[in-house]
């Protein structure tokens, strides 16, 4: 509400403001200069018909946000760079950024915090340096790490988490962490344990932004069906019936490379090594010539090997802006947050669609309903694993299953450690009965898609 000043008060106020307004450069000693936060102050000091019902405008809101709000930005790539810029310019000062990658030349068309001299350096470090040096007062802290390198004590310190990740597995993992931080007292969720997660994703000219309030709104796993499954070509096509140039490249990647080991016995194909890609390209051309297939190019080869997703600056700018707006809204309680999922597409004109993604009643991540497995006692363990990986609502990657059998904890199957994989492989073709499992028994399943072991109850159908 505006002041209802009398003429003299008004005149003095005008002088005061005018003095504050005169600038050419800033106040060198503090990194504040008058007028710097005017744009943002206007939001917070005026209420209007669109502001949040609980919102009380005040200059204190701005100070609070600047000083105390701690934001975690996950990813310093296409979205991450834009997010850091948007958040820092909005006034957030306590930013942490996590990214496990180093800078590649193909990042430079959109990850604008990096220059060609930075190629090879950790993204998180360079991004934080750039932000801190260009935006006075900002204290961005970099972490050149995987998100899985931290446990819940790290994540608990943040008021809001905003993600610019490029993998669904990573999103699900983070989703699991914030869910594990929730505190329930007598079955009632303590709102102070909620850390809002704002998740953005882009691909070419498409993108989406969503707000997740763990325990309250739909989580990542609630909407797993929204993510299209990854395309993998059938093996028989690759091995004996190629039709597309992509089939030829996959043949070389999956079958020829392990056979010919062109760069040494233990050398794995590295999509970022031009020499490796050149070899794959040449061999793919030979393969294609055998079958009269046209269209194999170096660019296509690299695209298939690295599973490249096209990307431009503009889509990342749009989605990051949407996400940063939500961070601002939630941090200041100034406006009602997005409820809760927005999709964007600018292939034909500009299209946005906003909807409320619903919580899934039996969500494997957030519903707290124990999960049941129903199999016949004569089913093989492999069938159970197939269900865990193929079910649309679980979509696990390489589940490891343990169970208590005859009082002892037994690993039934684990893929990630070679020696254990070899030892437990015969179990896959044994029946559940043969493995000593009983009706109503608990199975513990670990997987990259979740930070905590998931418990299932096994029921025999026959």
């Amino acid at each position, binding site marked *: 509400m505006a002041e209802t000043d009398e003429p003299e008060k008004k005149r003095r106020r005008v002088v005061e403001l005018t003095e504050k307004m005169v600038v*050419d450069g800033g106040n060198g000693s503090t990194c504040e200069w008058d007028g710097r936060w005017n744009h943002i102050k206007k*939001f917070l000091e005026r209420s209007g018909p669109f502001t949040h019902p609980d919102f009380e405008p005040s200059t204190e809101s701005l100070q609070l946000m600047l000083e105390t709000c701690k934001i975690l930005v996950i990813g310093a790539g296409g979205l991450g760079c834009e997010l850091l810029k948007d958040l820092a310019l909005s006034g957030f000062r306590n930013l942490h950024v996590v990214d496990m990658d180093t800078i590649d030349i193909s990042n430079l068309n959109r990850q604008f915090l990096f220059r060609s001299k930075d190629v090879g350096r950790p993204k998180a470090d360079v991004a934080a340096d750039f932000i801190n040096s260009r935006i006075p007062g900002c204290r961005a802290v970099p972490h050149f790490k995987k998100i899985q390198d931290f446990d819940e004590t790290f994540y608990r310190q943040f008021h809001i988490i905003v993600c610019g990740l490029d993998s669904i597995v990573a999103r699900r993992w983070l989703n699991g962490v914030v869910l594990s931080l929730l505190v329930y007292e007598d079955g009632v969720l303590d709102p102070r344990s909620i850390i809002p997660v704002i998740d953005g994703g882009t691909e*070419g000219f498409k993108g989406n932004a969503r707000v997740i309030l763990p325990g309250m709104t739909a989580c990542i796993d609630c909407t797993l069906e929204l993510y299209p499954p990854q395309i993998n070509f059938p093996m028989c096509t690759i091995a004996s*019936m190629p039709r*597309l140039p992509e089939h030829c490249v996959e043949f070389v990647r999956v079958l020829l490379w392990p056979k010919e080991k062109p760069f040494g016995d233990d050398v794995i194909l590295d999509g970022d090594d031009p020499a490796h890609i050149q070899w794959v390209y040449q061999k793919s051309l030979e393969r294609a010539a055998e079958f009269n297939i046209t269209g194999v190019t170096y660019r296509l080869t690299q695209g298939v090997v690295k599973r490249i997703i096209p990307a431009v600056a503009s889509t990342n700018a749009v989605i990051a802006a*949407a996400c940063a*707006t939500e961070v601002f809204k939630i941090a200041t309680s100034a406006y009602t947050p997005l409820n809760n999922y927005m999709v964007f597409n600018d292939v034909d004109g500009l299209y946005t669609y906003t909807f409320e993604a619903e919580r899934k009643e039996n969500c494997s991540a957030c519903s707290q309903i124990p999960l049941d497995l129903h199999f016949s006692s004569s089913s093989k363990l492999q069938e159970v694993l197939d269900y865990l990986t193929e079910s649309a609502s679980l979509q696990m990657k390489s589940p490891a299953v343990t169970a208590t059998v005859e009082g002892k904890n037994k690993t039934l199957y684990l893929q990630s450690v070679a020696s254990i994989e070899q030892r437990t492989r015969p179990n896959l073709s044994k029946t559940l009965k043969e493995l000593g499992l009983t009706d109503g028994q608990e199975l513990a399943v670990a997987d990259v898609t979740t930070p905590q072991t998931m418990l299932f109850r096994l029921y025999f159908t026959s």
Partner: protein
Amino acid sequence: IMAATKASKEQKYDRQLRLWGDHGQEALENAHICLINATATGTEILKNLVLPGIGAFTIVDGHTVTGEDVGNKAHAATELLQELNSDVSGNFVEESPDKLLDNDPEFFHRFTIVIGVQLPESTCLRLGSVLWSASVPFLLCKTYGLVGYMRLVVQEHTVIESHPDNALEDLRLDQPFAEFQNHVKSYDLDSMDKKDHSHTPWIIIVAKYLEKWFSEHNCRLPKNYKEKEAFRQFIREGILKNENGVPEDEENFEEAIKNVNTALNLTKIPSTVEDLFNSEQCNSITSQSPSFWVMLRAVKEFVHNEGNGSLPVRGTIPDMIADSQKFINLQNVYREKALQDAAAVSKHVECLLQSVGKVCKNASFLRVVRCRSLAEEYSVDSVNKDEITSCMDNPDSEMVFYLMLRAVDRFYQQHSRYPGVYNYQVEEDISKLKLSVNSLLQEYILGVNFCHYVLGSAAQEAIKIISHQFVPFNNTFIYNAMSQTSATLQL
């Protein structure tokens, strides 16, 4: 050094080259963009154009630095932007657009596109008129609080490569061309061994069964659900059975059955393309006609002659279960037909052979965007009253922001400042603003009972204009960051 620069550019731009190709990139690198007003909004848009590698930009700005915009102004802006991408050259003109319009309006004719940010109404209209006559596309952007606004002003913008999502295939199964029919004849499903039978492309299978169906149904395609279901069953009966009469696992037949619905779609010319054929530009080709219209006319001639009422064949088929040889042979039948059709179109056009190929391949997806001029939008006689009133029936419509922004512009015209810049002005300005809204509404006799996001979008729309790929919006886009909703309006 040339080769090294080219190679490193290919690497740097790799992710975007996969979207608009080398020719799209070339169009960008030949572009010279003008940005008017180096505000935070303007420089953010320009950043998203410099990063993908436009050839050059020129910032026009007559304002001096104020506290709110430190770090985003004029000269400093040009330097910062250039530093983002050394391939781009930047210039700066310290002059207001109004002065330039007074002294040298032809200054603006050199640009590929002009982007104006937070321009007052009078400047917009003056500049709009100059650019309209010079056929220079004009993109207006405004951000106001949590509302973003964009307006595209271009008389005619042609798009050959619109890159549609989920386009239907062009298989011509309802009217098979001679070469395809001959190819189908080379198959005898009844005498094939199991391996060949299971690896015959589904297109061939549908074609074969259609032939049989035609002979039993008086040359009529399956029309309704009942007939299509019968046709599917017909195909299903063709699946090989083992010695016990149990059907074998023939994925190609399953594919055929699954694709019956779309495969039987009638080949027809989309209405968007028919409208283009009927437009004046297509029918009065002169030596001044842009190549788009020349080629479109050639396609129209093809349709009425060699094409027998249909567009040139696109020439691509989707992947499907088949052995390599059968698939490649079938693919080649379509490819060769497409080349043949393109050659026929070429005969209707003397030159431009490269582009003709693209026009034929994209014939179903050609688009032209025509925006109303600003003069038409703002004039009392031609304002789009219907669009405004029908939107205002819905209380959540973004149209209210459009009216507000116009009212804000009107306010500026009257008071030479924007409303509510200082806190003490707010209350008084609210009533003044209401008057502006009312005056605006009264003037149009409407009787109606009143960002960063837009900036990324603005850059991409500019790229669409420059590259002539993908379809730009027409003609007003409003984004509401409060609700994260948006609307495209034609005003």
